């Protein structure tokens, strides 16, 4: 089931990616170890992808390498479009810890389709580390 979904998803991405194509080998995983392996971070996009230019929220889960939720972390958010040389159109912020190790990321917005980077700098009692996620925003195709 998941594999089927994954292959359909990549087909959709392949079909919808526009002129400025993202690299074919882009790592779109939503769970990553941070650069120095201090944390494992999972990004949770909204269940229904937000429309272009619509401000929306994501969730960030921060855990130790052994899977223990990391509480009271401070998370700085940055990002942009590496192919265009501009940053995010908003300054998203991790505004609250919803429950242990799960943070609300508010103010996300994508102003165009294509490859976006989401960079997180995490600070907690366990130390500081950074992680970069890739996401490809597809063109909305809506029925008439």
């Amino acid at each position, binding site marked *: *089931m*998941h594999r*089927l*979904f994954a292959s*359909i*998803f990549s*087909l*959709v991405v392949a*079909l*919808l*990616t*526009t*002129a*400025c194509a993202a690299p074919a080998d882009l790592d779109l995983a939503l769970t990553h170890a941070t650069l120095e392996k201090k944390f494992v971070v999972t990004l949770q996009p909204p*269940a*229904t992808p937000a*429309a*272009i*230019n619509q*401000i929306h929220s994501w969730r960030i889960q921060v855990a130790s390498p052994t899977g223990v939720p990391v509480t009271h972390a401070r998370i700085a958010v940055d990002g*942009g479009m*590496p*192919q*265009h*040389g*501009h*940053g*995010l*159109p*908003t*300054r*998203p*912020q991790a505004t609250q810890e919803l429950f242990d190790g799960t943070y609300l990321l*508010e*103010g996300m*917005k994508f*102003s*165009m*389709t*294509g490859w976006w980077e989401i960079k997180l700098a995490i600070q907690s009692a366990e130390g500081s580390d950074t992680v970069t996620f890739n996401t490809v925003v597809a*063109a*909305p*195709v*809506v*029925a*008439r």
Partner: protein
Amino acid sequence: MRTERLLATTLGIVLLVIAPGVSGLAFGTGNPAPPPRDQWSATEVGVLASLRLSQLPPTPSDPSNAFEASPAAIDFGRRLFNDKRFSQNQAVSCASCHDAKKQFQDGLPVGKGVGTGARRTMPIVGSGHSPWLFWDGRKDSLWAQALGPLEDAVEHGGNRTRYAQLVQTHYPTAYEKTFGKMPALPGAPVDASPTGTPTEKAAWKAMDAGTQQNVNRVFANLGKAIASFEKTLAHGETRFDQYVEGMVRGDRGAQRFLSPQEVDGLRVFIGKGQCVTCHNGPLFTDQSFHNTGVPPRDAGKPDPGRAAAIAKVQSDEFNCLGAFSDAKAAQCQELRFLTTDDPSLVGAFKTPSLRDVALRPPFMHAGQFASMEEVIAHYVRAPAAAVGHTELAHGAPGHTERKPIRLSDQEIKALVAFLGSLSGPVLEVAARK
């Protein structure tokens, strides 16, 4: 459960993307027809489909303007928009620069009110979709935007205290029908404003806080009425939209809406020209700010654009978080999550819509280019920016991973021809809510 729903949605999208291709193939069965003149891949149809007017969502409601859907506000706003008394010399109305006969702009390199401005008059149609107003986005709502030119020394050149009294004199009924009781302005001077001439500033300081507040309230409501009217102005369907609707349906007859040269230009637009990167969506704009190295009008005075607008919009007493906004703080998301310190904001200006673009030379934020050919030549040349850094690639390694735009003369001509297909009527539609 959620996976299944996602799967269903995704399958739906796949079918929608594939459908036009499938229906295109169906033409061949039974009744052999000549191959279609214009061949588009499913990916290309997906991009074209995202640009058609029918994909434009209803204009988002502005929580900071509680009156925008009120017919009384729209009617009052239309009258104010055309009223020349709201200016320092009684000769300038909003309509002076935003001429309904010229798609609500003036065709001049820079605006001319009671004096000469520094930037190009922007078209109003569809601006209810913009989170940020003006070329630099120094206002965060259409109503706050409308207040700017009224007090700008070279536009209307008047001041809020005079305007509030003009409303009391000329529009007491229209005002009260929309906004309720007109506040009293006892002892208010004729001319006073915190942003005006030294004399006006001094007069403002001498006013009591209650009267200042009442003047500000009436002034803010003027903006809300004007914005309510402006929000009724919408783009009508163009030849481009008719063409794309046909391509999406698999209706070959719709090819007649664009000439072969215009179709060539459309291919450049969504392909090697990279225009669609920023000019995306049904309004052909990402509503964002970019530095593309457009030379300043006055070489001695490079315009910092968006970078200089951040502090202005944050400190604007008429912004979404201000005392005259009807929004709850939580609704002011754009302001709350405003990018304040990105170096790419330096020298950046808003991506303009390209609907009706061929009808409104000269182009760019200060009318720097007289023709669309000159604009495209600029994007091909990709010069260094006078202030900040251009996002355009020069072909030099290490700048960005973006590719330089390389177009032949023929491709430039085709692109210009295509842009001409984006002209359509301006409609006045009742507020949608």
